[in-house]
């Protein structure tokens, strides 16, 4: 089973949930797909075994063949190409690597160049298989790096994917095709707003999901009411606790210092399995 952890709003506790779940179960693989700021490794401290670059193909122009017709500019959906005075200007940081310019160039004048945008590191910590991606500084295109992390999915294991925040392409790339999504939220107006956006995304993708309310004794009751109204299972509540905050800020795993949470996360996994099997 592949469980992904998403949230809509950032800073709700995705990484805490992902790492706690990974450390509470056996035969686990943890994939950190929050490639703009991966931090599961801080809590898991894996021994890294491999490190490989991720590249996307960006256009380069063969001046001998290019007649400046501008077709590449017309077909680029991302405004990464301008053609003025028959000169092709390429803005590779905006390129999504889709290949349209290469495909449509009538003169076969575009030669794709691999541009490195990030790296993937893999390793393990005891029984936990680990991989994460890191988007290079200044790069904007995280989905190719997320896809490269997901290539490491080992279906023989319980796979836990820590997704990035938000509700756009990076999140969808991280959670699409997974078996269950845990949406982590906090009971505040911001948390609820972004939760409801994330719920729309997950429903559109047709993935079963449930909610974890973190810092559950803060804020108001609106998140609870929303979940009841929308018939969304609340899988777990974690109170606002100074102790947990201290453990987190040291970079230590919560379940190691508070063993009662190990049982809670095992219970969470059981609940998810029950929802999956109906």
């Amino acid at each position, binding site marked *: 089973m592949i469980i992904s952890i998403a949230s809509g709003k950032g800073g709700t506790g995705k990484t805490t949930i992902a790492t706690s779940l990974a450390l509470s179960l056996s035969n686990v693989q943890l994939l950190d797909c929050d490639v703009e700021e991966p931090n599961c490794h801080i809590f898991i401290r894996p021994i890294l075994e491999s490190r490989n670059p991720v590249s996307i193909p960006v256009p380069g122009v063969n001046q001998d063949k290019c007649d400046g017709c501008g077709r590449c500019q017309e077909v680029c959906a*991302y*405004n*990464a190409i*301008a053609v*003025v005075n028959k000169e092709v*200007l390429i*803005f590779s940081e905006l390129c999504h690597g889709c290949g349209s310019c290469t495909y449509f160039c009538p003169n076969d004048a575009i030669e794709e160049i691999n541009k490195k945008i990030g790296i993937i590191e893999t390793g393990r910590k005891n029984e936990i298989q680990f991989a994460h991606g890191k988007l290079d500084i200044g790069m904007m295109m995280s989905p190719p790096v997320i896809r490269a992390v997901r290539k490491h999915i080992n279906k023989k294991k319980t796979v836990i994917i820590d997704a990035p925040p938000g509700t756009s392409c990076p999140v969808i790339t991280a959670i699409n095709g997974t078996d269950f999504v845990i949406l982590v939220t906090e009971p505040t107006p911001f948390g609820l707003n972004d939760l409801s956006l994330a719920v729309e995304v997950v429903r559109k993708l047709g993935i079963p999901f449930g909610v974890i309310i973190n810092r559950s004794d803060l804020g108001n009751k609106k998140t609870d009411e929303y979940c009841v109204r929308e018939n969304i299972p609340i899988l777990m509540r974690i109170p606002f606790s100074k102790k947990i905050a201290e453990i987190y800020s040291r970079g230590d795993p919560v379940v190691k210092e508070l063993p009662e949470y190990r049982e809670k996360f095992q219970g969470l996994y059981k609940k998810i399995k029950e929802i999956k099997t109906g």
Partner: protein
Amino acid sequence: MKIAITSSGTTLQSGVDPRFGRCPYYIIYDTENDSFEAIENKSSLAGGGAGIQAAQNISDMKAEAVITGNVGPNAFRVLSAASVKIYSGATGSIKDAIEKFKNGEYEETTGPDVGSHFGMGRK
């Protein structure tokens, strides 16, 4: 000659919009016969590369100069390659800007004067 002015509206009384790539309209003004046309900026809501697309469009319309508030590095690169002259720092109404341009009160801008994404409200 045709000049493009970044505009908040469709008339000569409209204000100069300081954003090059994300302004709502361009006033394309022809100094030969003092006629103008308001063109909607289809790049204003682009996910990315608004300045690049806008510069491409202005070049395609054969404008020879741009009057605007600020111009970022990507738009600057395209406009320069297209040999479109850039006059930034303009404020006030479109009408005023055209008068100042005609009187030679603007100095040509020789480099981008803001960073990427400035027109999206980031600094």
